[in-house]
């Protein structure tokens, strides 16, 4: 019996291992392909080799030589950071209220924010375009930051309220008994414990803003506020006959780097079990 059971689990492990490998390869091959493309020179670009025959930094030099990409990079970073900061601050407050307080209209608030998250963004693009044009927000940073905050807030509220619910309520009661005002209890006890949740949310919101293409292409028209995903689609070769694939690949690699850095940097702070030891067990 034990032998059969053992064989079964080994078989299962292999099965899962294989499945995982397939998924990882499926996800990573295109990424590696892009990386490979970005290092090929324009002559060998279309040779179909997975490993470049000659390595070159030509594509990277190209994209950084014009303001088209660098300006877009600055826009992307600025817009994503501002939108993330605002969404996380408001999200934290809203999530805390939802997790801790009973107030009239609480369910309505949660419902509405869920509704916003579910709403097909594409149906909002045309009205937003008209609104922003008449308000003078079209093709400006706030013109992108505002819709990003709107769509990131539900996400932030949901993630954060789950984190707040995990924090034992007794800690707050204890802080009150120890002489803290509600504000002090939040700042000195609840907020430090919610930090991993806040960072997780920040990463998710940042990635959402960073990756957005739909709003960015609809609500911008010039380099002034165009973000990287959009700028990529406007890449052209130096001549009409040149394929911009190399530059696009290089730019794609460059914009992936901040995301990886962001995750790696905050990963240390997302320590599971930070609240262990607060209460029994």
């Amino acid at each position, binding site marked *: 019996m034990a032998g059969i059971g053992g064989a079964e689990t080994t078989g299962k492990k292999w099965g899962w291992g294989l499945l995982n490998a397939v998924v990882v390869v499926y996800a990573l091959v295109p990424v590696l392909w892009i990386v490979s493309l970005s290092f090929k020179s324009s002559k060998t670009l279309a040779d179909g080799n997975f490993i470049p025959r000659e390595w070159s930094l030509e594509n990277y030099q190209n994209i950084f030589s014009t303001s088209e990409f660098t300006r877009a990079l600055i826009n992307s970073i600025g817009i994503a950071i501002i939108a993330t900061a605002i969404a996380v601050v408001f999200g934290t407050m809203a999530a805390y209220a939802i997790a801790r307080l009973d107030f009239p209209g609480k369910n309505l608030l949660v419902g509405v924010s869920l509704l916003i998250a579910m709403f097909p963004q594409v149906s909002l693009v045309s009205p937003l375009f008209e609104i922003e044009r008449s308000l003078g927000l079209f093709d400006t940073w706030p013109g992108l930051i505002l819709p990003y905050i709107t769509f990131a807030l539900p996400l932030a509220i949901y993630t954060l309220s789950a984190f707040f619910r995990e924090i034992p309520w007794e800690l707050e009661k204890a802080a009150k008994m120890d002489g803290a005002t509600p504000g002090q209890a939040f700042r000195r006890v609840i907020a430090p*414990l919610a930090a991993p949740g806040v960072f997780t949310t920040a990463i998710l919101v940042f990635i959402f803003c960073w990756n957005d293409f739909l709003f960015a292409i609809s609500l911008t028209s010039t380099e002034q506020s165009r973000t990287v995903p959009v700028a990529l689609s406007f890449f052209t070769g130096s001549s009409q006959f040149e394929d911009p694939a190399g530059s696009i690949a290089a730019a794609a690699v460059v914009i992936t780097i901040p995301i990886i850095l962001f995750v790696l940097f905050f990963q240390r702070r997302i320590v599971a079990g930070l609240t262990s030891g607060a209460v029994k067990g």
Partner: protein
Amino acid sequence: MAEIVLDKVTKRYPDGALAVQEVNLEIADGEFIILVGPSGCGKSTTLNMIAGLEDITDGELRIGGQRVNEKAPKDRDIAMVFQSYALYPHMTVKENMAFPLRLAKVDNATVEKKVKEAAEILDLTQHLDRKPSNLSGGQRQRVAMGRAIVRNPKAFLMDEPLSNLDAKLRVQMRTSVSRLQKQLGTTTVYVTHDQTEAMTLGDRVVVMRGGVVQQIGAPQFLYDQPANLFVAGFIGSPSMNFVPATLENGALRSVIGDVTLTDRVRQLVEAADAPREVIMGIRPEHFEDAALVDAAALSSGGKFTHQVDVLESMGSDKYAYFNLTGEQAASAELQELAKDAGSDDVPGDGIPLVTRLSSASGAVEGASADIWFDADKVQLFDPSNGRNLTYTER
């Protein structure tokens, strides 16, 4: 340090549920008082109202002669120890203990001094720089105590502070809590569902049931003179035996033998205007092996012979368990007690009886034994309302 007065304090939830009903309690300065009762009896709600964590619906709460109903917890100057300890996980032991002082804007030197003192009292000095997650249950419990004592509050509130410790540590901590309270002389309100803690720790015990105070008194008084069936069944371990009985011309008839009431008991019963059908309560230690009782006592007490169901020898005593034929004593109080003990769904016919016999007893499991009981120690209860018919203020 201050006295705490609860004047008809009532808690009613918005949905109309009455959690605590008109509790009147005067806690003297420096007194150690225990609120005890089964879960849902309102003891924790009462404590939270004293703390200020729950609003008082009706009545007045005074601490040190001052009405504090409307004051926030932080303005009441009382400290609380929680069942879960509620230590701040991101702070070290030292920071945890210093937290109330920091909030009170006490200067650094004083904070250091007070934390050091508290750590010495609680034997935590070598753990000051550790985080709560690296501490054992007993150490965490002591840190929670330390956080309460550092700022010399007017009163301590403790919400089942020992119930998360294992049995051996609980006994040990029980004595140190008691010693600490005597040493500091701070008014303490202690909530527990454990009647042993209630008996051993408190100057006075408040027994609650369904949001209503059943009886307030010194532990021994509650044990000897329970005001009703509920207190009688709740206080004492193993608990009091209850047997249905009939009063007839000064005699008491039941399945454990007929006895003539002693003069003391008869006078009380007559004064209380007792009904004919009563519930007789008798504690395990008031039984004895008939062979070990002298002739004079034997004739005045009750006697029965029955097969011993289970016999447990404790060395110093023997506990003999019987299962007598007959209908169990029935009342709302007893049902609730059985439910609290988790024995309400244990199937069983007949009347269970626990007796504590001398270790010299020759009782054998499975064999018949002659058992005597002291007629003067019998307590009689009214089955309709649970009132103790033999209660005296003594």
